[in-house]
């Protein structure tokens, strides 16, 4: 399995996409314990409160069980034992659980509103479609819709409202550092709202098993300051940087345009990801590979070796020179 050795090497490089985050010694770019979003911060706090409380309860119950089972000198009276059941088994847990429930219910409308109408506040609006095994991203801007894939650009401190759908199977949208997950279900439209609090690059994944390459369906969310965001989105809305040349000719001639769009060129397929600015994205193949020349060439030759079950056909019948030209062209689409 020569290809898999290559895969390992490439994946090692994929990790290098997040060197800044790793250097800070945090728990990772995909961690709910390293929150960078309002919902994730609240839930991380909730987690630590419950974990510490749970640990105290566990130690108390175990200490009592060990004492009862091995350490005590004399049996207690039945009446005392019975009171223990009533108090420790029923009364105290009821109080603790009720308090926790009230706290949880108090948090809920803040994180996810009771009604959908309440969610319609200002902020960035967009639409994410989960498809086997990548993410179609659409920004709904006042000046019109802009399509992208596998990367979402969000402004720090402003709410982001995404509608979520799926054309094939159930997926789940999860960027742990920002917020909890929400499923994408065929035939239904779900909504998720989150607000990034810190600039950074966060990794997200599909969290609902969606088929053979479920493990390889990831995305990146780049949170930047609002001004920077406006600039990046404007760049995203522009047509492609390269609209002529040998690369594009090959792209059209070899049928790539049947599935992919490159705005500003005749390529207008809608089956696969929009490639207008693919060169500017940090990763390739839904955050599976680093976005460099070698990875692009490899992916063009054997997409199925990178991602089993992918719908893109292999192009290994093309001569190396053509693969190289195509890959370089895609890299130039910044």
């Amino acid at each position, binding site marked *: 399995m020569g290809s898999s050795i290559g895969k390992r090497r490439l994946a090692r490089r994929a990790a290098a996409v997040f060197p800044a985050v790793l250097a800070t010694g945090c*728990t990772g770019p995909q961690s*709910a314990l390293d929150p960078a979003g309002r919902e994730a911060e609240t839930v991380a706090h909730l987690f630590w409160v419950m974990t510490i409380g749970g640990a105290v309860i566990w130690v108390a119950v175990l200490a009592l069980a060990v004492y*009862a089972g091995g350490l005590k000198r004399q049996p207690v009276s039945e009446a005392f034992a019975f009171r223990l059941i009533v108090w420790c088994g029923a009364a105290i847990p009821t109080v603790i659980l009720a308090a926790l429930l009230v706290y949880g219910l108090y948090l809920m409308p803040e994180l996810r509103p009771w009604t959908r109408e309440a969610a319609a506040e200002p902020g960035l609006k967009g639409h994410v479609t989960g498809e086997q095994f990548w993410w179609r991203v659409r920004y709904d801007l006042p000046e019109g819709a802009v399509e992208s894939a596998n990367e979402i650009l969000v402004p720090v401190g402003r709410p982001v409202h995404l509608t979520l759908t799926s054309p094939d199977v159930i997926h789940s949208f999860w960027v*742990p550092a920002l917020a909890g997950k929400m499923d994408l279900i065929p035939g239904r439209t779900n909504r998720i709202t989150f607000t990034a609090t810190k600039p950074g690059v966060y990794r997200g994944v599909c*969290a609902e098993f969606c088929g053979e390459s479920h493990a390889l369906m990831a995305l990146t969310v780049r949170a930047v300051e609002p001004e920077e965001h406006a600039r990046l989105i404007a760049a995203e809305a522009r047509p492609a940087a390269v609209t002529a040349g040998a690369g594009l000719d090959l792209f059209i001639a070899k049928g790539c345009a049947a599935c992919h769009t490159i705005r500003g060129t005749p390529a207008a397929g809608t089956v696969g990801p929009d490639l207008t600015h693919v060169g500017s994205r940090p990763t390739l193949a839904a955050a599976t590979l680093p976005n460099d020349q070698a990875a692009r060439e490899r992916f063009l030759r054997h997409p199925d070796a990178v991602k089993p079950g992918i719908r893109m056909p292999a192009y290994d019948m093309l001569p190396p020179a053509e693969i190289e030209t195509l890959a370089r062209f895609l890299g130039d689409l910044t």
Partner: protein
Amino acid sequence: MTATTDTAAGLPPPGSEADLARRRAQEERLRKTWETPKGIRYWTAVNNTEVGVWYTATAFVFMLFAGLLALLMRAQLAVPDNDLISADLYNQAFTLHGTVMMFLFAVPIFEAVAIVILPQMLGARDLPFPRLSAFGFWSFVLGGVFVCGSIFFNAAPNAGWFMYPPLATDEEQSGIGADIWLLGLSFIEVASIAAAVELIIGTLKCRPPGMRINMIPLFAWYILIVAGMILFAFPPLIAGDILFEMERMFDWPFFDPERRGDPLLWQHLFWIFGHPEVYIVFLPAIALIAMIVPTFAQRPIVGYSWIVLAAVGTGFLSFGLWVHHMFATGLPTISLAFFSAASEAVAIPTGVQIFVFIATLLAGRVIFAVPMLFATGGLAIFVIGGLTGVMVALAPFDWQAHDTYFVVAHLHYVLIGGMLFPIVAGIYYFYPITSGKMLSMRLGKIGFWLMFVGFNVGFLPMHFTGLRGMPRRVFTYPGGLGFDWLNMVSTVGAFVFAAGVGVVVWDVVRPKSREPYAPRNPWNAGTLEWLTTMPGENWGVRSVPFITSRYPIWDQPNLIRDVDEGRGLLPDAEEMKRETLVTSVLDAEPIQCLRVPGNAWSPMIAAFTLGGVFIALTFKWWIPALVSGVAFFCVLMFWLWTSTSLIPEKPEKDVGGGLVLPLYRSGPASIGWWAMFITMTGDATAFASLVFGYFFYWTVHADFVIDGGGPGVLWPMIAMGLLLASWAVTLLARRWNSADRPLPARLALVTAAVLAGAGGAAGLMGPYTHGMAPTTDVYPAIVWILVIWTAIHAAVGVIMLLYCLARSLAGRMTAVYDIDMRNVALYAHFLAMTAVVTFAVVGLFPLIN
């Protein structure tokens, strides 16, 4: 009713030559009657001591197989970007791991253990339907081998044990594996329900005299609760399986949104089953602890009624939690709040049960042995699982934790702490009952510490792996995301844990022929199963004592001696027929001496022919399926005809101590009537789930009922009328049969059969004449399903009515010996109810909509 000592009146004085001779003769007859056949006929055995042990061993083999799959997965995940196994094989492995652990180990092991020890615990000679146990076992073996074997042909299900459509309905992506899952498991579910029916009746109707309902061993209480839960939890899944397989096989669009189906309906049906399932798995294990703790504390349980009520409460609440598996599906936040609250609430009865054990230990003088080690270790693990359960029950936290390794850790803490450790404790505790030998305390301790340490090393890190962002069901992960080393630690722990399981397995299977038999009642326990001699006898209990205490061996002086000397009830098998006592439900007053059927090939052949139907359908081999179905029908008829509702050679017999009991009861006093009632309750639950589907679609789509696209009013009303007429005539047949007027009764049976057949056909005519095409839209599809369900039930009714007619003509059903007629009349009530609901929904509901 008289106490045991009084029943001794009239017997030769104890210890005299005449008394010894009497006992020896009785024992000889009992031994002969309950003898296990030798050679190839060994496999015809139906006695619980055989079938229960086979069942337990088979469930364990499946567990070990699923455990090997888990090790394969852990090996794959040890390092990032590993390519030890392919994505597809990994997906098959985790799907099969979950499926096998749940359906082929966790549920069957409880039924298996119950089959072994429940009769002993209740002083019964056997369960009331031994051939049904054997049928369930053979179905389980065949279905299990079929499902497990698929992975060796690269054809195992690969869409997860929850089988969410549309992924699992996609022929191309899920292949034949999904059919194997659906049909193989439906077959096993039917066997599980059969076992549940038997265990409910065994607990309610086959107790020793005097053991009132508030005195039954806690294990029996839990079995009763869990079997009841199976009865209401499995049918929704079977209903879901039917819809699912219709979509896969015939393209009926139940879960296809393009034709107005909805993938979420499957999730509801699956989790309405799936959440109670967790408690179906967990409660029987707690039941084992509830037997072990009093023994090792050497005192009765503290808070008997509290633990029983807590278990009942857990059972009820468990049906109201299913949506917490669907917190991330986008359901309205308000309903998530409700299910969060219910999910927190279930922790309270669980807490009560745990503190009942701690309180009992506190109030007793504890002897520490290997069963207690596993029980305590299981408790330590389970409490962590319970606490993380409280965490994920809160929707906001679940949005993060859902479908991550946090949940993998949580569910394994719950199931391994709350189920596997108690089961191993139970094996060390009850092993002497099955073999007469003790297991090794040294190996037990080694096994325990390997399992305990390995488990925690393996699974504790997963909580953090999950929160650091690792989702479930991934065949690999990139390095550098913060969970590389956590995964390596988990893999090491998993192999240490497996080594511990290996030690326990070795302890159980190692040859012990040179070791001495255990002393009788080796743990000095107080409950009836420990009356057994070492080694035990097939007859279960030598004679049935009168019970006055929850812990009779502790509290009733001379109990063992009286039982051994045949001074209880049923001390003999004069007619060389297998017999056990039937008692009343609440007060356990003896009401019948039940003849239970003996060894036969028919359960095995019935299981294999029925299994043949399911297996052939998987491959869409229609002719073999039909042939196998016809063979199953013939075997079933032979089985029923030759071994049920047999007219005894005399109406009643003396069961000892001057107590004379009838040998035949029918109607609500008979166990067969109860079996029919309980089975039909489960059947009605499946039907209710289909009706739920109809109204689920109605809530999803405002215009669900297509104007003019329905089956009309005329045919549904004709069908309802005919089926209600059939019901009325069936009741007349029962009345005339009881009045000893066979001719009108037989005419009524024929009439009722014709009416039922016509009613079923008329039901099908509605959608047929209106040209409803089930593949075009979900509305015609669900209407068709409801009328087909009703038509099939009408057809079964026809067969039952004709069976009664044949029994009457053959002289096997008379005015007094009328079990068949009474049970069919009971079935007719359910059929009438099904008909009214179906035809009101499909025929009348569109009018008011």
